[in-house]
């Protein structure tokens, strides 16, 4: 499972693409029926913002990475997540979903997670971020992107998501290789990281944002008329791939995230009483209490050239 990170960085550089590589005005937008349009609009807004969850996570990981190569890889990943968000914004514009230049807002749970990451992720350890971000990537990005590719016929959308998908597969490959790398640390250090990470009061806020996010996205998928098993399969992937590495398995945080994933995919688990309640409670949070969008979100654009 050991990865040649220098080789991966070369690959990442070689496979860069730009918004200008896609003809956003090509035929096919008419394949989005009015009914699909209505369901798709909030979904795309959430998806676009979920890209920023990954983006902000990678930005924090770039600061923590132990080698210059890995730092550079995370810098690229951060940028690529932004590119995905830009491409999704360009699709929304193509489908007439944007109201002028206004950036659509995500649901409250996505927003809470972004707020949390924006405020605290720079202070979190790599072993914390390196185990949680992959779960968010497989569960949210992975499942939602698959959903878009299965359900939407627009060839421009298909072309864009093929590129996004191949970027994401490199993200996941690195995510799991880094988990494997982190698992090589001494158990003593891993436990110190774990205790140190959980001892922070801010982490409670993180958990309170993370737990309802997965259930909320499940509800969204169901509302779109899609089988929630697609999300569960993505969640299972985290454990399936993680279990292949004896070193990743040593990470206490991996075990916790995996355990939590197991609860999420078991609809009969009492955990859902809490998670669903949190979805309802967070749904009542007045907008005024939420933080303003971070200034980096103003960088989002559907324009291929600036």
């Amino acid at each position: 499972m050991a990865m040649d990170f220098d080789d991966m960085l070369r690959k990442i550089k070689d496979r860069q693409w730009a918004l200008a590589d896609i003809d956003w005005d090509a035929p096919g937008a008419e394949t989005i029926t009015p009914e699909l349009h209505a369901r798709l609009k909030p979904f795309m807004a959430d998806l676009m913002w979920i890209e920023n969850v990954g983006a902000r996570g990678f930005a924090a990981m770039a600061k923590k990475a132990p080698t210059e190569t890995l730092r550079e890889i995370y810098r690229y990943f951060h940028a690529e997540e932004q590119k995905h968000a830009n491409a999704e914004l360009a699709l929304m514009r193509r489908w007439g979903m944007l109201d002028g230049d206004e950036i659509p807002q995500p649901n409250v749970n996505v927003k809470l997670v972004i707020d949390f990451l924006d405020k605290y992720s720079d202070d979190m350890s790599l072993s914390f971020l390196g185990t949680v971000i992959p779960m968010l990537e497989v569960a949210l990005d992975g499942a939602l992107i698959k959903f878009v590719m299965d359900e939407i016929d627009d060839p421009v959308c298909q072309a864009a998501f093929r590129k996004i998908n191949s970027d994401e597969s490199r993200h996941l490959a690195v995510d799991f290789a880094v988990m494997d790398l982190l698992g090589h640390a001494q158990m003593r250090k891993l436990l110190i990281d774990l205790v140190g990470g959980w001892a922070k009061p801010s982490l409670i806020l993180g958990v309170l944002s993370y737990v309802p996010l997965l259930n909320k996205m499940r509800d969204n998928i169901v509302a779109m008329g899609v089988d929630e098993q697609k999300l569960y399969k993505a969640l299972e992937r985290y454990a399936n791939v993680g279990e292949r590495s004896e070193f990743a398995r040593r990470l206490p945080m991996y075990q916790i995230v995996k355990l939590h994933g197991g609860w999420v995919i078991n609809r009969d688990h009492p955990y859902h009483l809490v998670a669903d309640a949190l979805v309802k409670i967070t749904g009542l949070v007045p907008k005024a209490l939420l933080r303003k969008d971070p200034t980096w979100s103003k960088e989002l654009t559907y324009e291929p050239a600036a």
Partner: protein
Amino acid sequence: MSTHTLDVAVIGGGFAGIGTAIRLKQHGIHDFAIFERGTAVGGTWRDNTYPGAACDIPSRLYSYSFAPNPNWSHTYSGSAEILGYIEAMAAEFRLGPHVRLRHNVTGIVFDERAGVWEIAVEGHAHPVLARTIVLASGPLANAGLVDIRGIETYRGHKIHSARWDHDYDFTRKRVAVVGTGASAVQIIPELVEKAASVKVFQRTPGWVLPRINRRTAVLTKEFYRRVPAAEQLARRAWYYGHESVALGVVWNTPLTRVVELVGKAQLRRQVKDPWLRRQLTPDFRAGCKRLLMTDDYYPALQHDNCKLITWPIARISEQGIRTAEGIEHQADCIVFATGFDVSKTGTPIPVAGLDGRILAEEWARGAYAYKSVAVSGYPNLFLTFGPNSGPGHNSALVYLEAQIDYLVSAIGTILARDLRILDVRRDRQDQYNADIQRRLTATTWNSGCRSWYLTEDGFNATMYPGFASQYVHQLRTVDLDDYVVVEARADQRQRRVVPVS
């Protein structure tokens, strides 16, 4: 063909070459020539004329103690004034007849039998001969070439900071600046005033410290003119002030934190947006890369027409720069403020020494020398700004002056004793470098960041790990015990190693 053999050939007519020439004359050595590839003297300060170009060491200290200038207009002078100072020195010391402009030296070979260097000059059929050589080509002589994908496809205007195009009008132009180092932070505030938009492409942010630049009062200039001792005193004050900074900048100490706190306070004071502040916060220890001294950079970045871009550059396209977030940032002109091609491995020109050895081959994995001035196997050859002579906290001119005095003394010995060979001993050189590399491990430069101080392998061939005073002290005298000395230049059959007294 001239058969005259110069006593000294100085290669390079910049600060180092002019300073060497002055000291040679002051020591009664007049048979020398300065080989300058350009059309005028001045070196780095002749080439770097970009808007805002200035030195971040106070002028009082960024000048020779043997050529004081009471007329500096500001605490920190701009490039034009520094160039004027160099030209004025050349005129005052009547160096004109010694300077050979448009003489591009393409290689030097040592003739062991004759004890003479053969200097190949571009366009000249025969080599020039010289008994000694001062390689004063300077570390900042060559512009750093940029290796970015697609650079050849760009259709707009390209400018390198070290070769500024003064004919290009930036008014109403969209400008991209690649790089955020010492040159960039000086150029950007100037461009923001003129151009329609400025996009600054940053790879890694540096530590930015305040620079208080005051105009020198007329009375102060007059006072320094009348009381030169007072000017020397001011110079010493600046010198020791900078020496104290070494404690935080050269070595990782609690004082390094203090330097970082000053940098962070400057950032907090000048940048209010937390994300921009995060983007501008370095992730390496202060001193690891060159410190940036400016009050104007952060405010310029926040001008309405300026934008900092931190996404990695994916490629340069026909119309601009494509970054990894998928956007093409279109520009009418790209300014490459990418610094200099500081040689840490090769040599500026091919140098062939004893037994045909090639210096660039020996330096392939990182340059080294004895006290940064001489290299074993290359007799009668002296370097200015040689390996491991770079300062991180004090004026380069202090180091340079010590080198010049050392090499002029060595050259004086060669000429006075009619030596055929003065070649530094390999064991002394190795011992010296082992010590330098050991001491470097404790410095900020070797603390983990990538910088132009280090080779790809992380070897530091650039910086001196100590106080300027230590550096100056070690060059105070030429100890012949450090050298293999061969006399009897006239009779080449007789070789004799001069016994060490």
